[in-house]
């Protein structure tokens, strides 16, 4: 029991569960199924980008990918334009999104490595370039996704949203990658001490490259799914995911200083973030109070986490 209590991800689930109950109470239980399905759907998108961001943050201080939103937008835009509602191009379209992710990840890391620019500035500068590419491709058109993809992303399997199942698959794979492969150990080692990792003979550059590519690919896949889900790619579709992708990593109990990551926590945090917004909506609070509460909660969570970590 005490071993479970010490798990850093526990608190995000406790918090998400509490908010869920409070929201259900407000509606007298009428919205239980609908609310849960909506939460799972929207949390799924945060989980997918959050996992990518988590891998990057685990690499250690200074590592962060600010190009996540623009990568989502570009991948969604280009894939939908390429598919142009043709059913047979669904898989090639997904492959295209993944290819865009790989390309962006590789360029990001080449710039970080060759120019020795801090990742936060590299990915920021790259996000400008990627966003421009998306604007030039999109030109204000809103191309609908192929019907089968639209149905799939909106649909349910045994009452569970399909996108949540996709996110679950990705999470399990990410958990296995982190905890059961040498690559996962390498990421943590680099995050704890880069010089030590290098001395130990870890292929530091290869691992960091793979991590930036992984993050960009997950962002691209999320952009593809989100564009299909919302019936078309919009130029601002990724905007809110910049802060969300970082927030879910931190609330989920991953160490911001790197070297210690946490996949289950991302789920707890993503559910929690969406539920807080719906709870405040249910109780009729305006946009201002919603934002203030979200911010206060992020700070409260990080404060509580620090109490646990540094308690004597």
């Amino acid at each position, binding site marked *: 029991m005490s071993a479970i209590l010490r798990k850093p991800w526990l608190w995000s689930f406790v918090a998400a569960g509490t908010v869920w109950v409070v929201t259900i109470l407000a509606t007298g239980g009428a919205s239980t199924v609908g609310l849960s399905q909506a939460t799972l759907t929207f949390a799924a998108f945060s989980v997918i980008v959050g996992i990518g961001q988590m891998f990057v943050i685990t690499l250690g*201080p*200074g590592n*962060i990918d*600010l190009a996540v939103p623009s990568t989502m937008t570009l991948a969604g835009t280009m894939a939908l334009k390429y598919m142009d509602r043709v059913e047979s191009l669904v898989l090639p379209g997904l492959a295209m999104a993944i290819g865009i992710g790989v390309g962006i990840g590789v360029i990001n890391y080449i*710039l970080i490595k060759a*120019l*020795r*620019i*801090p990742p*936060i*500035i*590299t990915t*920021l*500068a*790259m*996000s*400008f*370039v*990627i*966003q*421009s*590419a998306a*604007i*030039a491709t999109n*030109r204000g058109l809103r191309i609908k996704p192929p019907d089968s993809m639209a149905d799939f992303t909106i649909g349910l399997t045994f009452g569970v949203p399909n996108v949540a199942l996709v996110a679950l698959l990705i999470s399990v794979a990410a958990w296995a990658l982190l905890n059961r492969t040498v690559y996962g150990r390498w990421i943590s080692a680099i995050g704890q001490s880069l010089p030590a990792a290098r001395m130990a003979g870890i292929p530091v550059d290869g691992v960091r490259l793979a991590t930036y590519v992984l993050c960009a690919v997950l962002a691209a896949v999320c952009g593809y799914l989100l564009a299909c889900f919302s019936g078309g790619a919009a130029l601002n579709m990724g905007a809110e995911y910049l*802060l969300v992708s*970082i*927030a879910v990593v*931190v609330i989920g109990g991953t160490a*911001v*200083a790197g070297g210690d990551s946490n996949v289950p926590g991302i789920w707890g945090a993503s559910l929690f973030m969406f539920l807080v917004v719906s709870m405040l909506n249910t109780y009729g609070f*305006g*946009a*201002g*109070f*919603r*934002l*203030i*509460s*979200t*911010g*206060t*909660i*992020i*700070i409260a969570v*990080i*404060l509580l986490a*620090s*109490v646990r970590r*540094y308690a004597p």
Partner: protein
Amino acid sequence: MRRPSSEALRLALPIMALAALLIGIFVMRPNVMSYNGLHLLFKLGIPIALATLAQMVIMSVNDLDLSMGSFISFVACVTATWLVDAPVIGALILLVAIATYALLGMVIAYRGLPSIVVTLGMSFVWAGLAVLVLPTPGGTAPAWVTAIMSARPAAMPMGIAGSILIAVLAHILIMRSSFGVLIRGVGGNERSVARAGWSVLWARGAAYATAATFAVAAGITLVGLMTSADANIALRYTLLSIAGVILGGGEFIGGRVSAIGAVFGALTLLLAGSFLTFLKVSPDWQIGAQGLILILILALRLLLARLERNGLRA
């Protein structure tokens, strides 16, 4: 001959970048080379320079403020409403905001919290407060702010004069005063500052309060130029200010910052936008080209650093 100090070399790049952009603009549009032309070109210089300096102070203690844009937007909303209708209450709100920043700095120091996360949370709070203060775009600028910002000094346009004045004041405060040495010391080696008998807690609090003061000035001057405000007015300043500090030769860690460099970095980013417009770059690619300029200048900086090292070896 005495070798130029490495600080001077660091400063050379942002100055050269700004000069290159300026020359490029003059060549394409000779009529910009006039009082009015420069006035328009550097119009937004003062708020951007102030925002970049605010970020620089935070970065000098090894932190990063992701809420800078939403804080300045909040200040702008307060300026355009309370500071006009009830100046005393407006001023009090801004003072409380500065005190909040100081408190945040102390909490971050006391608990050893990551500043990125705390300011990320605060960015939601400031954005929410801005929406509460000014739900729809509007308001007016206080008369005295408009009067200052629309002044036309004889020697040079207000944007340039103000930026120079701000750069000099910030240089004295951060680079020359003992207070500046203390906060940069916290960024350099926190433990040794503590061993020397200073309170890191108060130093960080003071650094955050200083940064907030710069940011409040940025918000007020921005409203003076725009003559109204909205809750999203300065959101892009978060990333712009970080890029400006780095462009100006600052580092994320170690307390290595340069106030004059930061102002030059901010003005370079400001001019990059106009430069691209004059180049007739398609609006689609404008922000992308700004990203490329940023990468190009940082690549040059690496080259300069290499030359500097080789020079030392020779």
